[in-house]
């Protein structure tokens, strides 16, 4: 799969598995609650709502984040950022530093608990106007931002 003449990808911080598990688990909780309510209503034999919903829930919230983690990767070059993600819908994006308009470092409450951050670069293109890279150690994200900014500055001189 990997291009031979491109450098190896750096994986995300392993804590990303935990944070995205927590985020998915919280985000999908309403469905489990809904299934529980339907279970209470006793429309069908016991367990016919809660059991399948819970199995799917456990799969999506526990197994999927670990898989997603395995397929994310990035490479910080001297003049470009490469972000690879997805298996079913694979996407491999390169943004040259010289085309980056501004840079965001975001931290949500879960991220902050685990010391992670998300780096987002903005370009002027209509397609891929924002390229996001989640699950970086906060210090790494800041260092990458500094490196990109310095590169933008330097190229002009």
């Amino acid at each position: 799969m990997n291009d031979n003449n491109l450098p190896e990808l750096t994986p995300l911080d392993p804590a990303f598995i935990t944070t995205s598990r927590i985020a998915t688990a919280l985000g999908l909780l309403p469905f489990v609650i809904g299934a529980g309510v339907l279970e209470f209503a006793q429309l069908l034999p016991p367990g016919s709502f809660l059991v399948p919903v819970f199995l799917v829930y456990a799969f999506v919230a526990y197994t999927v984040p670990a898989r997603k983690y395995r397929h994310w990767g990035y490479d910080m070059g001297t003049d470009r950022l490469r972000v690879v993600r997805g298996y079913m819908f694979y996407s491999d994006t390169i943004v040259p530093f010289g085309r980056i308009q501004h840079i965001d470092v975001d931290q949500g409450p879960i991220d902050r608990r685990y010391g992670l951050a998300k780096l987002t670069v903005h370009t002027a293109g209509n397609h891929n106007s924002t390229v996001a890279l989640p699950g970086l150690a906060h210090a790494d994200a800041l260092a990458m931002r500094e490196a990109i900014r310095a590169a933008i500055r330097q190229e002009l001189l």
Partner: protein
Amino acid sequence: MNQAIDDPVDVTGQEGERLHISGLFVGFVSGLPQLLFPLLAAVFGARKADNPALIPIMIAAVLAISLFFRWLGWRRFRYHVGADDIRVEKGILNRTARSIPYDRIQDVSIEQKLLARLMGLSEVKFETGGGDGDDATLRFVTLEEANRLRALIRARKADEVVAQDVPQIAEPEDAETIFAMDDKRVLILGLYSFSLIIFAVLGGLAQQFDFLLPFEFWDFKRWAGLAEESGVNVNSINHVGMAAQLILAFGAFSSLIFIGFVTGVARTFLREYGFRLTQTAKGFRRRRGLFTLTDVVMPTHRVQAAVVQTGPIRKRRGWHSLKFVSLAQDSKQESNYVAAPLATLDELWRISKAAGIAAPDGDERLRKGAALHWIIHLCLLMPPSLIAMTALVIFADASLAPTLLLALLLVIAAFLFWCDWRSYRFGLDDQQLYLRRGWWQQRLTLAPQLKVQSVEIAQGPLARRYGLASLKFGIAGGTLEIVALPLSTAQAIRAAVMEKVAAVNYSAINQSR
């Protein structure tokens, strides 16, 4: 208050400046209309409690909560003017730290609305060329601070311009007409712009205002009756024989065509009359219009790509149209700048050359896409149509023969896919990317590789199985997607393009030339 809020976590490890505290009040007052709904909800909630004293308390509570969150937001907002960039940190729970390098700031705008003005405050917006249009706003700072920021950024930008202006070649100052359309050309364009839109407009009007009409517009018996009243016997029309009916049908048909052409010509004359494109020192200047004359200037360096289009009939006469895809920062609505609505290829390449985009040197350079891509898409259509056919036979008791007509749809789809594959071409040379697509309306996109913002290799599940990929180029104001590439080709193209792109800074391209 609690500890986490009193002690803000500094994302960058740098101290910043806060916005002006009075801005809190301005934001609160101008945000009052948004509070209308929660206020109403609070009032209605309180009314149920049968205690009139509760209503003012509830209103006060809603206002206090809103003010409290604004205050929190204010506390957690910092901006920092650094050596190379402006940083903005914000967010109560979700912390965002944005860094905007000075070189990327296109403009700084200062806005003072009435209330802010009374308080001596202003809103500062930093505009970059970001594709999502979401930049940084400081709401609010004092007017002196706003002016200081603007002066500071202008000063920093001035440094660069000096540095960059050296290689710039002086262009001739005089305006040179590079393309113009005379009345005859406009007429030809009008003939190609055959349009039956007038019927849609009339029909729409009739539907909108049918209560004004004294009769039912769509009632054909009524129309027949009207005709009989005025002496035409409708039955007699039915008896005049085949030939006469054909003549009548032909007459109706040709009048329809006539109206279509007249509409097209009229609309075109209104819009394109006196079309004139000149090249000035500032860029392209286009003047056109019969009653409403428009005059639009587009700086040459803003051109990001060119699109050459032609239709099935006009292609035979060698007519094409040329559009420029642009950054379009001034007018968000017109990101495509029509540089020539109807021109021969020679005229058209001359214009595009003025914008720094060269004609492709022959068709040999353009390659076909992998046919597998279209076959996969066709196969994706297969299961749903087969399921639909089976469902029709089983559930709707339709006989087999008419159901098989559905299979004809698949044949038509296959034919269309074949046409698309046949007309599809992509290619690249040292400077530009080419993409030609469409068998009915042909569209050739030419994009200088230097203006590419990002490159993405994308694969869906099926494409991945067969080793195909598509290349998506981010271009300011437009898109360019090359499909049906073997993965290795996609990677090679990307590597070649990135080599050129990464070496040149975007600010440099956008300011010079």
